[in-house]
């Protein structure tokens, strides 16, 4: 009798262990997917910014046609950013685009007709919002990375992680301080 009971307990323990392993594995997979999803969200917002720029340039051109240098600079920065492929390259190009865009928004100070244009004020709000969204998307990405890395490194899920080959993800740090300068959109 007792061997039967012991046998049942053993089986129960094994079942519990299997369930735990499955749960931890799924948690890791879910976490990794969240990280990937968050990364693609950053891309979505960057693309949104790319799409807003042509409209902005057209609007500004109508009022500030002499400022062709600044406008061409932002168009060039945009095409560079769209063509960048590696992560480091992208982050560098997007930083340059932020700076160029900031200059365009700043020059609108000198053109009161432009500031009064409803189209421009709408675009201004959209661009501010897009810059915010990029910031929040990065923040969310770092949060997801933190949660995932906690799972990968903490006991007991680290056992599962090392068995199945889950690695820690990299958080999105800004490499140098010049890129952390947010364009000041003040009016």
């Amino acid at each position, binding site marked *: 009798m007792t061997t039967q009971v012991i046998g049942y307990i053993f089986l129960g323990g094994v079942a519990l262990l299997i369930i735990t392993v499955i749960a931890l594995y799924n948690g890791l997979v879910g976490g990794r997917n*969240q990280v990937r999803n*968050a990364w693609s*969200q950053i891309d979505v*917002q960057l693309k949104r910014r790319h799409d807003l720029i042509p409209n902005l340039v057209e609007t500004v051109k109508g009022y500030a046609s002499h400022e062709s240098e600044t406008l061409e600079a932002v168009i060039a920065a945009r095409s560079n950013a769209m063509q960048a492929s590696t992560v480091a390259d992208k982050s560098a190009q997007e930083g340059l685009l932020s700076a160029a865009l900031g200059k365009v928004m700043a020059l609108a100070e000198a053109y009161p007709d432009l500031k009064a244009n409803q189209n421009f004020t*709408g675009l201004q*709000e*959209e661009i501010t*919002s897009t810059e*915010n*969204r990029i910031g*929040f*998307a990065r*923040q*969310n990405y*770092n*949060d*997801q990375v*933190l*949660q995932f890395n*906690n799972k990968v490194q903490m006991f007991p899920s680290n056992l599962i992680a090392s068995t199945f080959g889950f690695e820690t993800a990299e958080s999105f740090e800004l490499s140098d301080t010049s890129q952390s300068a947010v364009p000041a959109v*003040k009016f």
Partner: protein
Amino acid sequence: MWELIRQNRRRSWLILFCLATVLVGLGAAIGLSIAPPDGWRWGVLGALILWAVMAAAAYSQGQNMVLRLARAIPVNEDVHPVLHNVTEEMMLAANLPHKPALYVTDDSAPNAFATGSRPNDSAIVITAGLLQRLNRDELQAVVAHELAHIVNQDTKLMTTSGVMLGTIVMLSDMFMRSMWVGYGRSVRVRSRSTGKGGTHPAWMILAVVFAVLAPLFAQLLHLALSRQREYLADACAALYTRYPEALASALEKLGSQRGQLHSLNRITAPMYIVSPLRQLSQTKSRSLYRRLKGTHPPLEERISILRDMAGVPNGELNLRHFNRAYVKVTGTRHMPFSDLAIADFGSVSIRHGKPDGTVVGEANLHGEMDLVRAASGFQMIPCHCGVRIKVPPSFAQSSISCPRCGSYHSVHEVSPSDTAALDPELVPAPHQPVTNVYRRRSNGWESFDCSCGRLMQLSPSLGADRLRCPACGAVTKIESA
């Protein structure tokens, strides 16, 4: 954040379990009193059936009734692009894939609430009064708070809790009514059956006690749950925006201009960001009764906690700070979150707000109130610490001490010039010596305790180098960081 949500769910399950126990216990007690000793089974069954019926009714109606009650008008992007942008920014920060529908109500009292139990069925309603008064950052903080309710599925939780509460109240009510009618009937029952049936005094008394206490206890549990979730939403909003000062100043604006909401309803009251029920939350009293009966935590506590979070030393922000701030402000060790959840989450760095906050709407209410006072003959004396002292026309003495920094200003018959207020000779008189010294740790909001125990909060825009305690009058000198 997932660990936090899971932890909070566990605690909320505990409260729900307590409510369910009360429900089942009441059913059993009633059943026992009618047909002991096996009647408790029927009592429990009856209670559960009643609960199931009410739950079905509550869940099926869901959102539309609430929106109709509030007379909510849908808002699309062309009408209010800022609101939509702010919501989408917060959705990214909160990792929420489904965008809630946005509504506006034509109400001048500033408030907001979130509703919806299914992810693709959620909605946020904001009053026109709130849209008029808040700047972009503050609006974003309010939206973050409401999104936190949606992410944490608070509406589903409060509906479940509310249904249980309603069932308990109904059961208790029915039982008490049937008691007065039942004495006559019990005679007939006894004569019909062979000896079972009829009322038994001991079980009756027990059932009556249960029936009286259960609704009270259940209500306290329900309200405790509501308050706990409000704190959770505040903490989540601070974490999403990385800028707790925004929510603090939004709550402050909401607190000073409460007004009466037109479409007010006791049922929908718990879901608002700030309690729309005047009598329960505008009082500063910390009496136990008020605290227990409030659907929302006291507003000043919420603001103090958020501002305390904002003043953390190296700008590192996490739930541990919220917890510490909560303990410091409320003086209790009743923690909304467990240490285990906090350890999991880690820290994030705080953001510093942009100095100019453009107001989305027109109103400049501070100016409006001062306008009224000036029209009523109040004298405005600017103090160098930043406060404008408003002296009522009936003030008889020749000098007045500033409530914030304690320095004296002379009160003239005619309107005073600025130079009089900035006179350096008007320093605290000898009988107001500096009793404490506090050294700043940063240039932002900070809080510290006066020697009398009162929590004092230090604003970054304080113009003076000393602060007077409103409770005991002692003056604390502030040394810069």
